[in-house]
C-alpha cells in the first residue's frame, strides 16, 4: 500500500466517522436537542458571567482616571493663601493637574447640591475651607505609590487633610477580582459537568449499540475504529452546544442592552455593553468541542475494553 493510499484510507475512515456521527444525532433530534440544551446552559452561565465581569472591569478602568486627591486646607487659610499654595504645588512633578475651589465657590456648590440653601443663607460666616483638587502624575498608579505624596501634602502647614478618591475604586476592583475568581471556579465546575454530561450521553449510546460494537469487533475492527464515531459524536455535542451557548449569551446581552443603556444614560456615561470578541467566541467553541472529545474519550476507553465478544 502506498503512502497516498494509506492517507486516503485514513481520510475516508475519518470522513465516514464525522458524517455518520452527525447523522446519528440527527436521527434522534429530540433527545439530541435536550442534551445539547443542557450542555449549552452549563456553558452559557460562565460565559455570560465572564461577559458581565469584563464589562464591569471596563467601567472600573474608566474610573481609574479619577484617582484625584482632594486637599482640604485649614479653615483659617484664606483664598489668596490657597492660591499661593496651589501655584507652589504646580511646580511639584508628582502633580499634573490642579484646580482650586475657593470658599465662596465651595459654598455655592454646597448650596446648589445639598438642598440646604435657605439654611446656609442664614449663616453669617462661611464654614467651608479652600479645597485644592489635584491629580497625581500618571506614573503613580497604586495607592502605595501615591501614599508618600499624600503624606507630604498633609504635612503642609496650610493643610487640614488630604483624601484620595481612588480608594473606593480599588475596593471596586477588589470586588471585581473576587467575582472573576468565583466565575473561574464556577467555569471549572461547569466544565466538569459538561464533561460528565457528554460522557454519560456517550456511555448510554455505547450501551445501546453494544451488539453492533461486538459484531464490529468480530469482523476485525480495532478499538480506534469503533471509538472514532463516538469521539466525533462528542465533538459534535461539544461544538453544537458551544454554538447554542453563544447564541443564548447573545440573546441575554440583547435583552440586557436597553435597560443597561438607560442606566448608563442616567449616569451620563458613554458606556457601551460589549459582546464576546471574535477570539473569545473562538475560545468558547474550542473549549466546548475539546470537552466533548475528552468526555467521549474517557468513557470509550473505559467501556470498549469491557465490551468483548463472548
Amino acid at each position, binding site marked *: 500500500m502506498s503512502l497516498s493510499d494509506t492517507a486516503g484510507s485514513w481520510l475516508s475512515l475519518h470522513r465516514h466517522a464525522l458524517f455518520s456521527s452527525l447523522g446519528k444525532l440527527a436521527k434522534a433530534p429530540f433527545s439530541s436537542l435536550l442534551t445539547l440544551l443542557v450542555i449549552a446552559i452549563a456553558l452559557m452561565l460562565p460565559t455570560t458571567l465572564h461577559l458581565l465581569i469584563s464589562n464591569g472591569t471596563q467601567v472600573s478602568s474608566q474610573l481609574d482616571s479619577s484617582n484625584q486627591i482632594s486637599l482640604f486646607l485649614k479653615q483659617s487659610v484664606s483664598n489668596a493663601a490657597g492660591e499661593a499654595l496651589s501655584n507652589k504645588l504646580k511646580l511639584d512633578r508628582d502633580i499634573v493637574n490642579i484646580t482650586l475651589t475657593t470658599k465662596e465657590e465651595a459654598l455655592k456648590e454646597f448650596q446648589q447640591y445639598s438642598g440646604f440653601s435657605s439654611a446656609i443663607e442664614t449663616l453669617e460666616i462661611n464654614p467651608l475651607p479652600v479645597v485644592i483638587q489635584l491629580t497625581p502624575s500618571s506614573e503613580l498608579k497604586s495607592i502605595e505609590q501615591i501614599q508618600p505624596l499624600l503624606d507630604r501634602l498633609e504635612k503642609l502647614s496650610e493643610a487640614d487633610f488630604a483624601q484620595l478618591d481612588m480608594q473606593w475604586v480599588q475596593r471596586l476592583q477588589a470586588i471585581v477580582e473576587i467575582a472573576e475568581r468565583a466565575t473561574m471556579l464556577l467555569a471549572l465546575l461547569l466544565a466538569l459537568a459538561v464533561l460528565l454530561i457528554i460522557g454519560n450521553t456517550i456511555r448510554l449510546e455505547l450501551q445501546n449499540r453494544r451488539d453492533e460494537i461486538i459484531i464490529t469487533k*468480530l469482523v476485525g475492527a480495532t478499538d480506534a475504529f469503533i471509538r472514532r464515531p463516538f469521539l466525533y459524536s462528542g465533538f459534535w455535542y461539544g461544538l453544537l452546544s458551544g454554538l447554542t451557548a453563544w447564541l443564548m449569551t447573545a440573546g441575554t446581552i440583547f435583552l440586557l442592552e436597553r435597560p443597561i443603556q438607560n442606566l448608563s444614560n442616567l449616569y451620563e456615561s458613554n458606556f457601551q455593553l460589549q459582546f464576546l470578541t471574535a477570539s473569545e467566541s473562538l475560545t468558547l467553541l474550542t473549549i466546548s468541542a475539546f470537552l466533548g472529545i475528552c468526555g467521549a474519550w474517557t468513557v470509550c476507553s473505559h467501556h470498549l475494553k469491557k465490551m468483548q465478544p463472548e
Partner: protein
Amino acid sequence: MLQFDHASKRYPGNIDALNRVSFHLAKGEMAFLTGHSGAGKSTLLKLIALIERCTRGQILLDGHNLNKVPNRKIPFVRRKIGMIFQDHRLLHDRTVFDNVALPLIIEGLNYRDTARRVRAALDKVGLLNKENSLPITLSGGEQQRVGIARAVVNRPPMILADEPTGNLDPELSQEIMALFEQFNQVGVSVLIATHDLELVNKMGYRRLVLEQGHLTQGGESSHVAI
C-alpha cells in the same frame, strides 16, 4: 493454514472445555467439526478467532502463534478469518449493502472499490437485488447468505462457520454448504462446526469429531505428536 498443537482450554472452576487438541488444516482444505453440544466445538472456534485464549498448548494460524498476539493486534488476526454465525449477527439498522461493506470500511477501502467488491460478494451469494433491503425483511436463509457475503468480502484465507445451517431446512442448508464448497474451490480454507451429521456424511469431507473436549477422530492423535 491452521494448526492446533496440544491446545487446552480450561474455564474458571476447572472446567476443561478442550483437552490437548491437535490437528492440522492445510491451506485450501475444507473440514467439518462435529460433536454433541457442549463437546467444545464453539470453544475451539473461539480460540481461533481469539475470542478466548488457550490455557495450554498453542495454535498457529497462517504461521502466526496466536498465543503471542497481543490484544491490540487481535483485530488484524480476525481480518484473516471470515466468520459466520448461527444467528447471523447482522446489523439490523443497516442495509444489506452496509452490512457486507463493514469489513472493507474497517480497512478503510475507498468507496468505489468497496461498492465493487460488495456487489461481487452479493452476486456470489445470489442477493445482488437485495442490496438496499434491511436484514429484517429477508428470510433466514437469505440473512445467512448476507452473513457469508460479509465473511468473504475482504477475501480472507480462511472461513470459520459456527452452525451455519442450524436454523435452516435441509434444502436451504444444502445451498449454503454448496456456497462454502465454491469458496473452498478457489483456495479458501473452510472449517464448519455443525451437528447436521446427515449433511456432513453426504458431502464427504474430512471430519474432526470432538467428544467432551477431546478430539477423537480426524486429528493427529495427541500421544503421537509429542
